[in-house]
């Protein structure tokens, strides 16, 4: 990494003396950069922007010292970060310095997946892509190009591809992540939880976390509010097969058998209803089908749940009463990554129902009503309407899918049904690690005539690409505005802090240039992004200059809770909270969730669980020198006794072998008391095999590689991935 040695104190004070003046003058970054280009810039410059190390989009202020990027801190004006970034955000400067960045457009040489490249100009790369796209369009129609996009930065590429005529635009964040949760809540309340989640953790007096490992999972606002609740003495109940950091803060830790969460939820609801502890007024006022619901859950007593969950009936009752004691300020957290066992939408619906019984939806300490500012979209011509329609969910096989299913597109790419998919764009997502069953993904890729990867760094997916387009990092570009739907409405601007080090380009430029090559000039009436942003902001009555200076403009405050005047509307078929779902019944599903025991693994194997570490966002941050320095490899957590049975201790190197014979890279054992004996745990995002990720190559094991099996959620097409089992093999 290119960070310099620390300045001596005296020299530092001198520098910051100069800087104090400069800091107050938040000049236009690009303007200053251009002006200062011939001579080395002196002093300190602070530029407000917002983060892109994860998709939380926290407001930040970057500092440039003597022309070199120095540090990045939270923007105190920002309601998401409250002026404090998470470790990934603080380490975001490392993305700029990452020596594994793609430096120029690359075109594949030789066989697919051979990772042999030739550097080309942008013009060559984009001309090639455009001509391939036109060929695919001519043969199969524009729908045969799909875009997998993760995060706000994909906005302009989506625009170009929609203009080109494809409706097949998707993100793993639905079918591989939060989809089941949002569907489950939608079926119950008629609204989604959203991102950032509309959870009022800050005011919760009782917080229930089911597999959510806040604190390791570092979504900034959530963790800040979690710590606030812990500090305020909130009663925390954690359900997890692993003794997570959150579990260590809990009053009740329930070490549940993996996969039995729905049984526990049913028993909790049974206890609340049986003991009459639920919010009767709330249910009577807002609920639909409560009687039928009560009858459905009547058999699911704590005694029934005990053998399924391993949680004693008294503990189940005691925790249910604890929740009731604090209601409505009892928040049963909906989680985020919810694709576990294939019954995930129903489990999420059970979480929604439990919250409904506690009366926490729309209440302080439960779920608030988010709002956003009204910033009109840029007035573009209408997109062409696809005759074929979307490819991912033919015949609405998954009737409650609310977004496009990645794995549906993958399947269509393999089978050619309902119609062939011949081109993939991937923006900032490594589908090899994001989608289950790597083999299927590779099979699909082999059917493609064009695979374009737009990203800051390489990836396993990029290794298969025909063209890699290197994007400027968030610190080097303007981007789409963040018009956030949150507790407090606001608009935030991302603006360049520093020039990209090589021939990397911002996503808007890439998308616009590609559109030009495709003859879609009509869809790009603006010449550059500043014109675009200015137009959008002006149409909302906001000033671009103010945003450049402050980074964030707050909108008016709206009532957050029913008691404050937030409107209690439930856009479900009944217009009420659906304790009993007639639409599920009509579609042939359980109108009230039912528990089905997940399949057990082979004898002597461990269920493979995975999660997050606070210093990494999937694989995206693994080559960031600062974050790599924080955590350079993962370890496999194994219960001490279980490890001992196989003769392993902490620090031993093993390979994980799954039920289908897939073997991981070597990984260190963490023999610990902090996990059940029937499962093992890996932090996701490690175990890279791409030669482009030199810093991360071969470090730790990839859980994704071992997820060869998945259970598809029949409601919405989500892929439950906690259904794989591994054994440990000594690495010699």
């Amino acid at each position: 990494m290119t960070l310099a040695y620390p300045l001596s104190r005296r020299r530092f004070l001198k520098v910051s003396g100069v800087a104090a003046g400069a800091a107050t003058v938040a000049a236009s970054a690009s303007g200053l950069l251009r002006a200062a280009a011939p001579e080395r810039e002196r002093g300190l410059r602070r530029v407000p922007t917002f983060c892109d190390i994860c998709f939380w989009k926290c407001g930040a202020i970057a500092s440039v010292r003597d022309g070199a990027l120095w540090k990045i801190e939270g923007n105190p004006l920002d309601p998401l970060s409250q002026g404090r970034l998470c470790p990934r955000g603080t380490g975001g400067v490392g993305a700029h310095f990452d020596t594994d960045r793609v430096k120029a457009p690359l075109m594949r040489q030789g066989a697919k997946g051979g990772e042999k490249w030739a550097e080309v100009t942008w013009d060559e790369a984009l001309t090639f892509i455009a001509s391939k796209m036109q060929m695919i369009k001519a043969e199969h129609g524009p729908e045969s190009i799909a875009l997998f996009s993760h995060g706000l930065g994909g906005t302009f590429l989506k625009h170009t591809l929609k203009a080109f005529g494809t409706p097949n635009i998707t993100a793993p964040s639905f079918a591989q992540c939060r989809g089941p949760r949002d569907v489950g809540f939608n079926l119950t309340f008629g609204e989604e939880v959203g991102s950032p989640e509309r959870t009022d953790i800050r005011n919760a007096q009782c917080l229930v976390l089911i597999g959510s490992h806040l604190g390791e999972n570092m979504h900034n606002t959530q963790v800040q509010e979690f710590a606030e609740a812990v500090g305020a003495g909130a009663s925390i109940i954690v359900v997890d097969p692993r003794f997570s950091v959150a579990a260590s803060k809990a009053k009740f830790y329930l070490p549940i058998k993996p996969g039995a969460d729905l049984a526990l939820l049913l028993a909790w609801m049974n206890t609340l209803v049986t003991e009459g502890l639920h919010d009767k007024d709330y249910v009577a006022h807002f609920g639909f089908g409560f009687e039928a619901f009560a009858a459905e859950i009547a058999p699911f007593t704590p005694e029934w749940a005990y053998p399924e969950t391993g949680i004693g009936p008294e503990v189940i009752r005691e925790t249910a009463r604890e929740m009731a004691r604090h209601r409505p300020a009892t928040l049963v957290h909906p989680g985020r990554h919810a694709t576990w066992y294939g019954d995930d939408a129903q489990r999420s619906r059970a979480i929604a129902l439990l919250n409904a019984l506690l009366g926490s939806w729309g209440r302080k300490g439960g779920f608030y009503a988010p709002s956003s500012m009204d910033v009109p979209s840029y007035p573009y011509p209408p997109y062409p309407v696809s005759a074929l329609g979307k490819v991912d969910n033919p015949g609405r096989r998954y009737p409650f899918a609310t977004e496009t299913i990645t794995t549906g597109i993958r399947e269509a790419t393999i089978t050619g049904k309902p119609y062939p998919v011949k081109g993939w764009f991937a923006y900032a997502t490594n589908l090899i690690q994001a989608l289950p069953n790597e083999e299927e993904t590779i099979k699909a890729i082999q059917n493609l005539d064009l695979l374009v990867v737009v990203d800051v760094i390489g990836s396993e997916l990029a290794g298969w690409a025909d063209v890699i387009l290197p994007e400027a990092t968030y610190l080097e570009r303007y981007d789409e505005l963040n018009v956030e739907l949150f507790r407090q409405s606001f608009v935030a601007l991302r603006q360049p802090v520093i020039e990209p080090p090589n021939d990397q380009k911002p996503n808007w430029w890439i998308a616009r240039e590609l559109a030009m090559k495709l003859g879609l000039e009509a869809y790009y009436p603006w010449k550059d992004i500043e014109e675009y942003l200015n137009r959008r902001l002006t149409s909302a009555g906001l000033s671009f200059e103010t945003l450049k200076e402050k980074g964030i403009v707050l909108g008016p405050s709206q009532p957050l809770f029913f008691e404050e005047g937030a409107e209690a509307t439930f856009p479900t078929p009944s217009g009420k909270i659906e304790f009993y779902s007639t639409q599920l019944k009509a579609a042939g599903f359980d109108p009230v969730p039912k528990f089905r025991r997940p399949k057990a693994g082979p004898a002597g194997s461990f269920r493979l669980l995975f999660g997050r570490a606070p210093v990494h966002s999937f694989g995206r941050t693994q080559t960031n020198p600062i974050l790599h320095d924080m955590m350079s490899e993962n370890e496999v957590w194994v219960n001490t006794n279980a490890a001992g049975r196989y003769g392993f201790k902490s620090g031993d190197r093993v390979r994980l072998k799954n039920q289908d014979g897939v073997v991981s890279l070597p990984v260190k054992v963490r023999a610990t008391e902090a996990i059940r004996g029937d499962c093992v745990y890996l932090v996701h995002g490690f175990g890279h095999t791409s030669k482009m990720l030199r810093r991360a190559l071969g470090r730790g094991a990839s859980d994704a590689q071992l997820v060869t099996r998945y259970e598809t959620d029949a409601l919405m097409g989500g892929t439950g991935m906690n259904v794989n089992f591994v054994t440990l093999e000594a690495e010699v």
Partner: protein
Amino acid sequence: MFELVSTRHNPMIDPGLHVWGYEIPLYLFLGGFVAGIMVLFGVALFRGREAQRFSVYSDLPLVGLVCLSLGMLALFLDLEHKLHVWRLYVTFEPWSPMSWGAWILLLVYPVLLAGVLLSPPAPALWFVPGLEKLSSRWKADRSKVRWLGVASVASGIALGIYTGILLSSLGARPLWSSALLGPLFLVSGLSAGAAFAHLTAKDPKESEGLARADNAFLIAELALIALFLIGLMSAGEAQAQAAGLLLGGPFTAAFWTLVVGVGIVTPLVIQTLVLTHRIVHTRVAPLLVLLGGLALRFVVVYAGQYSHWPRG
């Protein structure tokens, strides 16, 4: 029982402290060895004219001068900021044994140099005119020789003890937190000095005397090691754990075989047998003593760094 996980990964610090490689043990050994030489030389000076034909009298100061320089070279090589070495000599830090050491080394040099001048090596006599005259004038002056003897013994003891105190002042390393480390290193240095003199002695009478003296030092060393370990075992949890490194841990084998077995017990037995004329005299015993002295510094420095306060 508990599990401790730390994210720290500093070179030389994690997973166990290892800031000093071969240089410091070598320096401590050479320092102790030179200390032993100086004490023996000083004592020889008191023995009067008859000692002048002994090699202790004539050869040791030069050996000491060379070894001390080598030791200081080792110390210098260990420094991470070598160009700043002069900063040792622009200050005196009364609480820092290392500062004391830096200055003691400067005091030791003139004493050793005076010893060399007392019986200069032949090449020096060739090159420096008038040296022979000076040296014989000094030799003839009993009071000068005696003062040199006093200075040599005193600075030898200071140097020997200092090599131990340097470590024992570092309270964060429980293995070193023993007041006996100074005397132990001094006695080990004396023993090494005697062994070396023994090795080079040409006079059988001198040789026998040195072997006898060496045996006494070795017995004292054994006693000090025993006391050192007993002291640690009874001092507290941290020290007892540290003693465990030598009594049933990663350094046990090296300690008992190299330091105690090879370096003390075996030569002690051999020299006793030689002195009682049961076996013939060889150079094996003194070589083993020197090896043992070096091993002692390595084991104490390496194990000591590794020792730490209970983590939790």
